């Protein structure tokens, strides 16, 4: 049973990677969709940060409203180290992830010992502090106007300076993150985490070290966030504080919840939806926020397992109804 599930997951990832590989060529067929490749780069970046939160929400039953801070840490560490100290983009990226893990540890360890809403508020506070820091620490961050000139990443001497090359690079990482996440879910700690979600007391009685398992997954979510931020910095090559504000943390939460808590795929579906919706609903302008709020509430009220859960339910119903005939 477990073995066949595993094969299905591998098949799913391969199919997904193939679709991702041909998408830019399909987008090129029409001038109206040509810029979708650009949007898809952001979908990849946001999928990575959303996958981290999805692990935390779906498998540790914990909520973070501070993922934007890790995203910002990744972006700013990459930006500052490469432009001001001349450190190579790859090393800067790793430095950002290490710092994010450290911060996640500092915030997570105390908050994760307490009930669910403590991590939510602690991370919300942490996100706000980080945002104030990005705005006020002029010497390092350039303040509200930010700074530019962040170099492109390059692989084997080939700079990733076109949208298409960065698309393939970002999606390669996003798919690696997907595979890592699927493995975490299937691993021993992952099963422990699912036990936590089902019943904290039962898990503790089985001898599972709850706060350690939760802290580990929170660290992973912070590292994924920083990786996404670093990709953002190297793709856009200019950073200022707004993309890293608290509302972005809320948006990541929406991606995971709308896509579907309890399924890593949901994070990818949610990231795609939240990036394409504003393109399709341009008439809403700033009020797209209102639409997201209602979508989020409707999902929470009527389909807590999100769009992916809805899809699974529908296919299962179709299967049983055809099976009984």
């Amino acid at each position: 049973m477990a073995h066949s599930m595993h094969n299905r997951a591998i098949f799913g990832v391969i199919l997904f990677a193939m679709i991702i590989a041909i998408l830019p060529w399909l987008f090129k067929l029409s001038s109206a969709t040509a810029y979708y490749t650009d949007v898809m780069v952001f979908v990849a970046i946001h999928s990575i940060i959303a996958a981290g939160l999805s692990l935390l929400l779906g498998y540790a039953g914990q909520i973070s409203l501070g993922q934007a801070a890790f995203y910002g840490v990744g972006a700013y560490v990459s930006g500052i180290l490469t432009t001001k100290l001349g450190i190579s983009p790859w090393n800067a990226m790793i430095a950002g992830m290490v710092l994010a893990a450290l911060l996640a540890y500092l915030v997570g360890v105390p908050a994760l010992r307490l009930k669910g809403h403590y991590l939510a508020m602690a991370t919300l506070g942490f996100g706000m502090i980080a945002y104030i820091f990005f705005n006020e620490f002029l010497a390092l961050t350039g303040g509200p106007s930010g700074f530019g000139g962040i170099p492109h990443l390059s692989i084997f001497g080939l700079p990733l300076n076109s949208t298409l090359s960065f698309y393939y690079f970002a999606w390669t990482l996003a798919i690696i993150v997907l595979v890592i996440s699927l493995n975490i879910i299937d691993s021993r700690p992952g099963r422990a985490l699912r036990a936590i979600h089902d019943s904290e007391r039962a898990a503790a009685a089985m001898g599972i070290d709850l706060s350690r398992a939760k802290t580990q997954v929170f660290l992973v979510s912070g590292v994924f966030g920083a990786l996404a931020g670093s990709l953002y910095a190297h793709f856009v090559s200019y950073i200022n504080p707004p993309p890293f504000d608290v509302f972005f943390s809320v948006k990541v939460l929406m991606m995971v919840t709308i896509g579907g808590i309890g399924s890593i795929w949901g994070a990818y579906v949610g990231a795609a939806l939240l990036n394409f919706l504003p393109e399709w609903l341009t008439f809403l302008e700033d009020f797209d926020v209102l639409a997201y709020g209602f979508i989020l509430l409707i999902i929470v009220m009527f389909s807590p397992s999100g769009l992916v859960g809805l899809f699974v339910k529908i296919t299962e119903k179709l299967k049983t109804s055809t099976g009984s005939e």
Partner: protein
Amino acid sequence: MNQIEISSILQYVSTGISVGAIYALVALGFNIIYNVTEIINFAQGEFGVWGGLLLVMLIKSLGFPLFICFFIAVFAVSLLGALIYWLSIAPLQKPSILTKIIATIAISIILKGLAMFIWGKDPYALKPFVEGPPVQFAGAFIQTQTFWILGITLTMVLVLTFFYNSTVTGKAMRACADDSEAAGLVGISTTRMVLVSFALSAALGAVGGAIITPMTLMEYDRGSMLAIKGFSAAILGGLGSFNGAVAAGFILGLLEAFATGFISSSYKDAITLILLLTIIFWRPQGLFNRKAR
């Protein structure tokens, strides 16, 4: 020199008290809902925004005296609070903590979006409740609104104490907070009590927003900062404790005012937030509680 210092300290104290009052009211709002439901309502700050903006709109459009508009605004926001519970929290099927948190976050996004839709993005000003020159005291200028803020906040605390100690509904709510199953057994409708707690909590938030608007202006996106400051006060005072919330609200307001005066206004929010994290780290049961929750 000495004279200047005393006057500026008085100035900080008066600013701190007025800002602290709204933190206290928001913190009380958190506690009222938390005690009955164990829900932390992430939309708590939005009630303050709605209270303030609704008051400005009513005064401009109706032209009624301020105190009538004040009551209408507070009443309308408390209905909004009840409506939110009835439409979105009550229908949740066996919600986990996670689901409840996300539902209140969704509500806060909707309330913020609606506020932007109705009132736009610009901040709104409001005249002080009674116009008059600032009171001069030991070289400090204290705005008359400060006295209104302090007076109304203390009145709210007294009314709340009376409500919980001496009315049937208040006692029933306390029973639900202690043990909702046992309260149900003696015939108290938990659902109704939760509805009342949402209405009451929204009303308190609205009062806070309305009284602070003459001093700090009000705009659609002030809610999340209000919420986290109020939550910090609630945690500092010990989640669930009313007296603790009020004391902690004022402590937080004073701390911010002094931080602004002596350090820098750009880091005043960061100082409160770092305090919040420190409290969660060291004393999650709050400053005044001896036992851990």
